[in-house]
């Protein structure tokens, strides 16, 4: 079936799709969003079930290859050192994300000018700052103003408790004279905007049944649906169509919940399918005009894939740290080693993140993001009796540099349940990153000891965490040169004038912070640019 054209067609109802829809709603254009996943109601979140931890290894796993739900697409990661993880539903990966909300630094947008690596972004921090603020207000962000690692800004809500674990580590950083700060979080420290505050349940990845975590299913989507934005779930876009004469996108073909293929026409198409889903869709949209995939004249679609390779170091303290209480990834963040330093053997930097600790089953199975069960027998007992309660950790989260060889391509054999080719990932961790990891592990150890740790255990060794491809960036990067980038400085593809991309795939560099705050600020900025250029948008 073919549907009448809408003004704006957004593909993907996650973090980015919701933010751009919000920005465009005031234009009164007819906006439709197609989302392959369903609405997942908070009453169905596993954190309300007695055996909640089991679902982390079943249908609420962050890994689509484990979940294998009808709305998921498989990902071939056999040739990657990290596997991408996500969630496919209204809210996208913000349904199971952990709500850590740091911004990028001004220097992240200037890696080429400052450090001679990668490329500069065509936008800068100052341009994005008002959009960060706007997004923080809509999302309900908690944190402490005055962080000396950033130009001045103040989150709308006070910080969440950092608790004993955060306080202990903070004292360690203070003893060394190192930077740390309570984490900015997309988690409510107070009731806000009709939503209730965080209850410190500690299982943020299993969906926040309290609604305290700023998933767009709780923040943007209720506003958008009230405002008349149409959201069709269970609709998986197979291909974006182009007019062979004009070179404009005309709409999409999608598989509907009825199992049939439909055509939806549109004046403007906006892709928001995350850093793996977006290049996958473009590469699958081949035509006479674009035989190598849509908007891919630069051959950059699917290249420069960046994650944030990470590892963890654990310290054992004298007192119980109660790391299972509180938002699981958020307590304090040290950016002592974030900026480049010519005295180090690597460029750019990393953060030392203190989440909380973890729940018993996940500890027994090796930790979040790791598949490496702990020992059985007496050693098992000792770990649970003498280490687990007294553990506090630091995660070394590194900046990944863009490299063309790290790619998302289409798998020749593997498909999703609609027969659409699955993405294949080819990815290796770069030398610069390995040096950062070594430096970070030593730094984390020092900080933990300064905080009072009696023993250090659980250093990552020669591997990064496997199931930790939470952040997927770079695969349709921004730039002013159409030969070397896919979208321009405000998200419009160089090759197709009515096609926009708004998710992390347009990142030029990755920074060393969780990306969603920046993804959404960028989506709001792109929405604003569309509005400002509306008279000659497609020229």
């Amino acid at each position, binding site marked *: 079936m073919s549907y009448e054209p809408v003004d704006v067609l957004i593909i993907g109802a996650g973090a980015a799709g919701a933010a751009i829809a919000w920005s465009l709603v005031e234009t009164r254009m007819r906006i439709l969003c197609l989302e392959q996943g369903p609405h997942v109601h908070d009453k169905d979140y596993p954190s309300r079930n007695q055996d909640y931890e089991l679902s982390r290894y079943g249908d609420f796993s962050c890994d689509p290859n484990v979940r294998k739900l009808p709305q998921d697409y498989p990902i071939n990661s056999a040739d990657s050192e990290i596997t991408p993880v996500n969630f496919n539903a209204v809210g996208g990966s913000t349904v199971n994300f952990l709500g850590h909300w740091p911004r990028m630094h001004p220097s992240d947008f*200037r890696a080429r000018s400052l450090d001679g690596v990668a490329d500069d972004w065509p936008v800068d921090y100052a341009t994005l700052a008002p959009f960060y603020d706007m997004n923080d207000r809509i999302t309900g962000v908690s944190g402490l103003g005055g962080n000396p690692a950033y130009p001045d800004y103040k989150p709308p809500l006070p910080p969440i408790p*950092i608790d004993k674990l955060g306080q202990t580590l903070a004292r360690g950083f203070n003893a060394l004279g190192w930077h740390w700060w309570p984490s900015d979080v997309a988690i409510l420290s107070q009731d806000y905007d009709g939503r209730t505050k965080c209850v410190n349940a500690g299982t943020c990845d299993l969906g926040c049944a309290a609604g305290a975590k700023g998933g767009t299913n709780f923040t943007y989507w209720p506003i958008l649906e009230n405002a008349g934005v149409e959201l069709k779930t269970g609709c998986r876009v197979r291909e974006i169509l182009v007019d062979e004469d004009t070179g404009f996108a005309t709409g999409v073909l999608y598989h509907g919940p009825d199992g049939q293929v439909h055509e939806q026409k549109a004046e403007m198409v906006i892709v928001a399918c995350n850093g793996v889903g977006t290049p996958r869709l473009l590469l699958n949209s081949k035509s006479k005009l674009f035989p190598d995939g849509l908007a891919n004249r630069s051959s950059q679609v699917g290249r420069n894939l960046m994650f944030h390779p990470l590892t963890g170091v654990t310290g054992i303290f004298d007192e119980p740290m109660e790391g299972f209480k*509180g938002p699981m990834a958020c307590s304090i963040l040290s950016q002592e080693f974030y900026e480049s330093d010519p005295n180090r053997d690597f460029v750019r930097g990393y953060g030392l993140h203190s989440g909380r600790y973890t729940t018993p089953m996940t500890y027994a199975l090796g930790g979040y993001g790791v598949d490496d069960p702990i020992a*059985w027998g007496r050693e*098992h007992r000792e770990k649970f009796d003498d280490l687990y309660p007294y553990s506090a950790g630091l995660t070394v989260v590194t900046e990944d540099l863009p490299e063309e060889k790290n790619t998302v391509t289409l798998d020749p054999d593997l498909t999703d349940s609609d027969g659409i080719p699955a993405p294949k990932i080819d990815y290796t961790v770069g030398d610069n990153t390995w040096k950062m990891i070594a430096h970070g592990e030593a730094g984390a150890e020092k900080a933990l000891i300064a905080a009072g740790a009696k023993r250090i255990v659980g250093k990552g060794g020669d591997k990064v965490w496997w199931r930790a491809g939470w952040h997927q960036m770079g695969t349709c990067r921004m730039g002013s040169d159409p030969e070397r980038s896919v979208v321009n400085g405000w998200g419009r593809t160089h090759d197709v004038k009515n096609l926009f991309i708004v998710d992390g795939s347009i990142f030029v560099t990755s920074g060393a912070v969780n990306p969603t705050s920046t993804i959404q600020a960028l989506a709001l900025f792109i929405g604003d640019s569309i509005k400002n250029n509306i008279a000659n948008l497609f020229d």
Partner: protein
Amino acid sequence: MTNNREHWSEDERVLLVAILDQLIPANEEKKIPSAGDPGTALYLAGIAAGDDQIGTLFARGLKRAAELSNTTGGAFVSLNNSEQIAVIRQLEEAEPAFFEALLRHTYMAYYSRPDIRALLGLLAKPTQPDGYDVPSETPEFMAELTAPVRRRGQVYRAC
């Protein structure tokens, strides 16, 4: 499909429970039970009954465990502690796929039990809707704790 409870013969069940006792031993002092309780074995029976591949893997693994203990000196339950541990180590070598699945599912079964969670200090009930009571730090306390960081001043590159 076989009923969970009847999935294994009595001999298999007794053997499995004794192996589970070794995989996660009890802590008598803290009154934390071992994994060799009926709940864990029943969960494993459910897994084995619900998936033919795992069912076959488990049947083969348990058969091998019985053979290895017979070679060591008799039924697994009749062996002394160090002999049992030695048999499990041999089993780990001889049947790695079975052992990996057994260990993983044992950990999942055991730690999904509310009573075990409570003994480790967590809520026995689901984490939502009540969660944990964690007091917020006061603004004064945070001001004091962050004072050294603020004193040092800007740590980002302005550009």
